[in-house]
């Protein structure tokens, strides 16, 4: 998420004061665009004006530190394995030469490239996860960017020092990132946008001001995150409007400003955020004041899991501890600068594809308040939360009317108090107007003040990061056959997942 969002007291008053939907029209302007007062001037020394040909460049500027070949082979040796740099001097050259089913196999070295992938069903693999380093040198935008190509897999390599993203899939149907490291990245470590049928596994993201791992704009996503480690980011996981058969499992989120943050917003499609399964994760010590952080990370700081305006998520069997605020919080999200009106409840089941075809609301408010509805929080082990182990709060309506439920959590505190009694899963909740809902409330509006007073963001380029931990390599990277991401996600036995032990 990249929006400037604030939770504010008196939201309705503010809305009224901000001009509402006063979009005026002007029919009679009659001046020339470009400026009636602007004067003629001599020609510049700019180059000739032939229209450019917009073909992808063969390689990204920046080259590679890997040993260059003077005459790279045009097509490798036709064995379906394109070796870098032995057969192709750069990763981009190999990727451009690859066809579906091919394996681009990268030898250890530092590659100063930003690789674009437009070919379906290729696999890009490093021979060593630590040793194959794509380094953007804080100059290049994305380590590997998969652009609408289906079934591409990225395996066993490191991306670092990119201004935007480490590994980025956009509009991919079928994708996989396995044994990928993303370190010191300007936006997101591993990022899947508008992409479906994916798997992100055994991967690592650190040092991003936004999120180490981000899945955005998909419903249903049909994706699994399994064994991801996110640390020292603004957010460990962010998922704007991402859900629908989306499982985040067996992963660790630690030392970020906030841990796991699915969220709703109208600045990208597929709102609201719905239907995540967050299970079997270890989430701890997400209070880190020394990370780079966008404003939302400042706002969510000190929380393990925050469903910010999310709907119908299930958060279960996670181990969560040591947070300055809450272990799990279901809270509203006030979106400033709305791009559409809130979807009605009967639109909550609408797919992303269907929503894309819908017109915008006739009247769009300045602000939207996304409330968290219908989430299930059960069987988590939560401890050492300085505000509450579990919490829920609404702003625009009674908190007890949101149909969230809580059951079987190993906790010592909640906000409101006795939350598992107020809203147990599987049995009737205490009526929303019962004053028991007002006992020891969360007071989420104080988070705004906290965010203003929080330690400021540290520039991602200079933020202190721990060394990359010792992470598993992909087994048999040199010999394993190419496995394009054509049948993703992998099946996951959710029922077999148990709460991690501390």
């Amino acid at each position: 998420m990249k929006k400037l969002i604030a939770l504010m007291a008196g939201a309705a008053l503010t809305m009224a004061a901000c001009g509402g939907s006063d979009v005026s029209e002007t029919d009679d302007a009659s001046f020339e665009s470009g400026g009636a007062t602007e004067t003629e001037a001599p020609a510049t020394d700019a180059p000739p004006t032939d229209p450019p040909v917009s073909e992808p460049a063969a390689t990204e500027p920046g080259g590679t530190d890997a040993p260059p070949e003077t005459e790279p082979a045009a097509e490798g040796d036709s064995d379906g394995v394109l070796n870098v740099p032995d057969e192709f001097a750069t990763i981009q050259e190999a990727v451009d030469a690859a066809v579906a089913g091919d394996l681009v196999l990268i030898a250890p070295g530092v590659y100063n490239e930003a690789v674009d992938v437009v070919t379906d069903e290729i696999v890009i693999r490093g021979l060593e996860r630590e040793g194959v380093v794509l380094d953007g040198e804080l100059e290049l935008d994305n380590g590997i960017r998969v652009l609408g190509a289906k079934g591409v897999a990225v395996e066993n390599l490191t991306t670092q020092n990119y201004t935007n993203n480490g590994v980025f899939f956009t509009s991919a149907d079928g994708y996989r990132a396995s044994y990928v490291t993303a370190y010191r990245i300007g936006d997101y470590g591993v990022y899947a946008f508008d992409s479906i049928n994916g798997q992100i596994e055994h991967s690592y993201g650190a040092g991003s001001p936004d999120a180490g791992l981000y899945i955005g704009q998909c419903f249903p996503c049909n994706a699994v995150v399994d064994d991801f480690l996110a640390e020292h980011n603004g957010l460990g996981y962010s998922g704007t409007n991402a859900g629908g058969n989306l499982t985040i499992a067996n992963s660790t989120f630690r030392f970020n400003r906030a841990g796991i943050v699915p969220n709703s917003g109208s600045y990208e499609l597929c709102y609201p955020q719905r239907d995540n399964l967050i299970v079997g994760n270890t989430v701890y010590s997400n209070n880190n004041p020394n990370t780079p952080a966008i404003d939302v990370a400042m706002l969510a700081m000190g929380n393990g899991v925050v469903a910010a305006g999310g709907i119908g998520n299930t958060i279960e069997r996670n181990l969560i501890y040591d947070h300055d605020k809450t272990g799990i919080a279901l809270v509203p999200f006030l979106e400033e600068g709305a791009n559409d009106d809130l979807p009605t409840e009967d639109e909550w089941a609408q797919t992303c594809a269907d929503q894309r075809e819908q017109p915008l609301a006739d009247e769009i408010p300045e602000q939207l308040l996304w409330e968290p509805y219908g989430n299930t929080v059960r069987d988590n082990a939560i401890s050492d939360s300085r505000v509450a182990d579990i919490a829920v709060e609404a702003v625009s309506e009674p908190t007890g009317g949101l149909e969230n439920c809580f059951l079987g959590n190993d906790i010592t505190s909640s906000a409101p108090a006795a939350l598992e009694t107020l809203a147990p899963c599987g049995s009737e909740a205490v009526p929303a107007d019962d004053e028991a809902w007002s006992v020891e409330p969360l007071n989420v509006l104080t988070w705004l003040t906290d965010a203003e007073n929080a330690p400021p963001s540290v520039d991602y380029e200079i933020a202190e990061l721990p060394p990359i931990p010792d992470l598993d390599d992909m087994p048999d990277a040199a010999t394993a056959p190419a496995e394009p991401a054509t049948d993703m996600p992998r099946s996951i036995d959710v029922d077999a997942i148990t709460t991690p032990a501390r």
Partner: protein
Amino acid sequence: MRARWLVAVIGALALAGCGSDTGTSVGGDPDPERVGPQGRVAQFIVQCEVSHIAFDDPIVLPWQPGASHQHQFFGNAETNADPGYERVIGADTSCDQRLDTASYWSPTLLDADGSRIDAQKLTAYYRPGQGVDPADVVAYPPGFMMVAGSSAADEPQGQDVIAWSCGSGAVRADTPPECSLGTTLRLWITFPDCWDSSRLTSFGSGAHVRYSDDGCPESHPLALPQLQMAIDFPPVAPDGLALSSGPIHSAHADFWNTWDQDKLEREVAVCLNRGLVCGLSG
């Protein structure tokens, strides 16, 4: 859809001098596809901080340093009154996309006392224009220059050219709205996106470019990326705001293509031509 498309005024026809209409889009609503959620329309984006402030304008007042109203420059660190392309290509940039060494500039925002309100950042959105087949879009040629909006305007220019909003919200206004502390005051400037395919610049007249309206006109047949500059300011009170170019309606902005040309062409090819969203920004 662009709601209105006014046929050119007689004077503009004369200015064009080539028998074509000038097709300048004024007085229209913003295109809903471009004010709603991102993700519907292909785009790539760049975010830049202010690089420098100067009384220079290499498009309208070339080689006349200090002769312009005050401008805030984004992107290329070397842009000044000298329009020499080779001088600035490859210079440092204030943009996060380091290969975007293009030059973007606009008049500065002034409060009621005439003091400058510093911009926080620029977001440059590049998209196919309205009704344009994304596959047809080509990159700006090296050194290409254009202006959007009019420095002489003293009335609203049409929100499909100049608009104000709070943050990236879809609610747009002709004048700066009052915005809450949690957001920004944002100025939107939408550039022409159809080119006559020959002239790199018309020195501020706008004769070499047009806005698309269900595609590009015959006179300006080549579809370029439609650049939309979004300049964020702190959410200041709107009363008395003006621009260094004059009243608040005199908003305009300038673009000079000093991108790393290979990178620009690549972004057009892999993002716009393929109809993909290559980045988002609130």
